[in-house]
């Protein structure tokens, strides 16, 4: 089992890695591609910059510095996190394998708000779900759709396949970014509404209306757009979230033992200085947590 996995390699993730590494923990950063920082054209309000730098430069220098200090970096996409069966650690799931760690720091940035499809928010818990592992049970021998286009959506669809009689993927106007097996039917039209029906006095999902006017009957809809963001991952493991941000205490700890969060995903200022500070706190707290486990 690894000591600490950090998900995300922006300023929060790299700062967490540096401080945790310096505190004596083994640290692995898993990330896929660049985040919000790389899109910043010019950073000139951060401490110690004699001249402005681009976000991409700052990000690359941050990663290079952490590598120099012995932090491991892995290029992979995280599609889920869970507690292991005996509550002794956390499991980080990527498309092809699972990694066990004593502690995890979520620093994968803020997620954009879910698309404003009528019915999507209203029907949450009534057929709209954000956790295939939790809710696949309810769709035995039923038809379900996954909303998304990448590895994350495929992962959710694969969890549903053994339960549901039929699994469809609605890419909402996008081209799939991964190979989708033939058993999953792909719909590329934009979804304009999640339709519902009344069953014993409560509303529940009955189908998806697409831009071509077609109504495809489904019993459930699992939302897995783009890549899984910090908040998506937090919701799957049961970390508290509020208004699309992860709830943390002063040590950047969530309510899940061993799970920390830092940077844009905790809300507040979307700034490098805030992400770096929170990353440092989370890295130290995670290292302290791991040391505590060792002394048991």
């Amino acid at each position: 089992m690894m000591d600490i996995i950090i998900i995300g390699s922006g300023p929060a993730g790299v700062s967490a890695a540096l401080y945790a590494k310096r505190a004596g923990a083994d640290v692995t950063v898993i990330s896929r591609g660049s985040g919000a920082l790389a899109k910043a054209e010019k950073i000139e309000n951060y401490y110690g910059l004699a001249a402005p730098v681009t976000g991409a430069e700052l990000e690359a220098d941050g990663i290079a510095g952490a590598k120099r200090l012995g932090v491991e970096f892995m290029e992979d996409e995280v599609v889920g996190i869970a507690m292991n069966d005996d509550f002794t650690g956390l499991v980080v799931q990527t498309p092809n394998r699972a990694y066990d760690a004593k502690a995890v720091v979520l620093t994968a940035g803020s997620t954009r708000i879910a698309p404003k499809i009528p019915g999507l928010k209203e029907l949450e818990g009534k057929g709209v779900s954000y956790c295939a592992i939790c809710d696949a049970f309810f769709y035995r021998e039923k038809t379900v759709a996954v909303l998304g286009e990448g590895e994350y959506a495929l992962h959710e669809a694969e969890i549903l396949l053994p339960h549901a009689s039929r699994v469809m993927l609605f890419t909402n106007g996008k081209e799939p970014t991964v190979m989708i097996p033939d058993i999953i039917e792909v719909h590329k039209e934009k979804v304009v509404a999640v339709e519902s029906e009344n069953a014993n006095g409560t509303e529940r999902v009955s189908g998806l209306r697409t831009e071509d006017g077609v109504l495809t009957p489904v019993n459930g809809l699992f939302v897995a757009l783009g890549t899984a963001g910090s908040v998506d991952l937090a919701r799957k493991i049961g970390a508290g979230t509020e208004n699309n941000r992860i709830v943390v205490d002063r040590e950047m700890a969530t309510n899940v033992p061993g799970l920390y969060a830092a940077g844009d995903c905790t809300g507040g200022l979307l700034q490098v200085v805030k992400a770096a500070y929170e990353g440092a706190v989370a890295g130290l707290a995670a290292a302290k947590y791991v040391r505590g486990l060792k002394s048991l």
Partner: protein
Amino acid sequence: MTVTVLNKENFKNEVLQADKPVLVDFWATWCGPCRMMAPVVEKIAEEHPELKVCKVDIDENPELAQMFNIMSIPTLAAFKGGQLTGTAVGYQPKENVLKLFA
């Protein structure tokens, strides 16, 4: 107060005919957010004697989940006078659960 474990035999008596408002936690062993919810629900049972706090393992009692159209877990359901008056889905801190009874 402890958390009452429900099944289809005792559901009517414990929930629908209860003499006080009832919180029901619909959960399953495989659901991560349900595992995080359990200590919160236990704490509510301890601190709020004015509520009856119960849980339903949906794997063992699928008919109870079906009766209330539960399609996501955890679902926290509030009952007053035998009627379902509100639900919250996913991990919720204590304050959010108690809001169901406000």
